[in-house]
């Protein structure tokens, strides 16, 4: 791939944040700006989680091995947006009211499941470096990073449980996630010869440069 491509993708991933910032600056976030910020950062978390999960199937189906070099970046952007989403919640929504937040996490299942999804992403973000892959060893690292499946499912359920009646948007995420996870189930059931050719350990050696 061309050298400048990665920085361009990086900047594009900051686009949603830039757009929010621009709208906020121009007072164009509508009647309920905090709600818009909450929903937007939540949406982009899910989108980046799904994009991250799409890399492996895309790479295998197209044979475009270079795609793997973008996986960590997309995963970290998912984490970036979920941190913003969480900050919006504790700062703009709850205004650092710890008591209220703990009550929320314990009592509101959509918050509980969303918070779980967020917490599970923390070790993945920390161990996303080449050093951590080496320290953990490919197999263990791979196993740990399967937490993204749980996290993505938690994210979609979080959204689903939050809406009042119209589930079509969470449903869209659920369908895409279902396809991406379904692909992995099918791939693991395929004859051993094909599975070995795309053995997961290879992907661990590939994510070298950020």
């Amino acid at each position: 791939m061309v050298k400048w491509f990665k920085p361009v993708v990086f900047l594009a991933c900051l686009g949603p944040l830039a757009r929010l910032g621009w709208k906020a600056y121009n007072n164009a976030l509508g009647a309920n700006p905090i709600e818009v910020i909450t929903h937007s950062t939540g949406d982009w978390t899910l989108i980046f989680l799904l994009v991250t999960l799409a890399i492996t199937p895309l790479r295998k189906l197209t044979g475009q091995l270079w795609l793997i070099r973008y996986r960590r970046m997309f995963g970290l952007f998912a984490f970036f947006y979920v941190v913003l989403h969480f900050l919006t919640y504790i700062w703009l929504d709850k205004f650092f009211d710890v008591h209220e937040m703990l009550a929320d996490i314990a009592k509101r299942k959509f918050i509980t499941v969303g918070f779980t999804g967020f917490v599970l992403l923390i070790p993945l973000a920390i161990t996303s470096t080449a050093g951590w892959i080496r320290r953990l060893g490919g197999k263990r690292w791979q196993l740990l990073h399967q937490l993204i499946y749980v996290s993505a499912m938690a994210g979609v359920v979080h959204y689903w449980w939050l809406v009042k009646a119209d589930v079509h948007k969470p449903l869209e995420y659920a369908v895409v996630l279902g396809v991406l996870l379904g692909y992995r189930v099918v791939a693991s059931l395929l004859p051993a010869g094909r599975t070995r050719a795309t053995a997961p350990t290879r992907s661990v050696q590939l994510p070298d440069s950020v």
Partner: protein
Amino acid sequence: MLIKKSAVIPSSEITPRSLYLNRRKFLAGAAVAGAVAAVGSRLDELATPSLTVDADAKIDGVKKSPLSTTEKITPYKDVTNYNNYYEFSTDKYEPAGLAKDFKTRPWTVTIDGLVSKKQVLDVGTIIKMAAPEERIYRHRCVEGWSIVVPWVGFSLSELIKRAQPLGKAKFVEFTTVYDPKQMPGQQGRVLDWPYVEGLRLDEANHPLALLCFGMYGEALPNQDGAPLRIVVPWKYGFKSAKAIVRIRFSDSQPLNTWNKMAPNEYGFYSNVNPNVDHPRWSQAKERRLGEFLKRPTLMFNGYDQVASLYSGMDLKKNF
């Protein structure tokens, strides 16, 4: 030093945009109004249904009401661009655009059920039943946001009294228009259309319960429930049915749409109550649009005068 006189025009001298845009309609309307007044008020009851509506038209002779709050009114722009109106869209920012061409004339309202005067009334006739009042009410959505709106209308009891409900009548049911061609949200099955809401008859007769056809001194915008809606300020917003075509009196509790959809989340009463949480979120606080910090939600949305309607009732059970 040369001091230039400021070129700023005092806001009192600026013609409101709506008046400017409607000045022809206004002239025509004034002519008709004059003619009607000349013929006599009796005749307008017999008048043919009004076929056009002066969108944004100023409502004349609106009296102030002691029931109004003195809190800061939410900007018109927010109240008309942030609407929970699932008949048009589940996206709050979409009804403003989607309802633009919604036809609110001709419009009739059927009054039936346990009343001695079953009738089909033109909305123009209903609007003239009593003198219009401005009622500045707090409006609290079940989702946790709130606004302050200067509605225009009169007490719902004015209409109820004219319908003459029978002694058996204990409830009033309101039905929103069903017109999927005009209301794209009704083409899907997000809710069970048509939208139905209801009140106990004594609730409906409470002076605060408003039959509403305007806001900010003008005709109700389509996205806010034109041409006729109710406003029940001590209950969550979804109780205040919009674009009403039927008012039915009955002896049994109506099954309101949200209650039917999720009985454990939305009750029949749905009084604003900070002590009874929605199963999925807290109702203790609310975000007043335009404010940064959330404010505490008040019992009955601050309308304590309705408390006697529920004396002896367990409001945790009757949520």
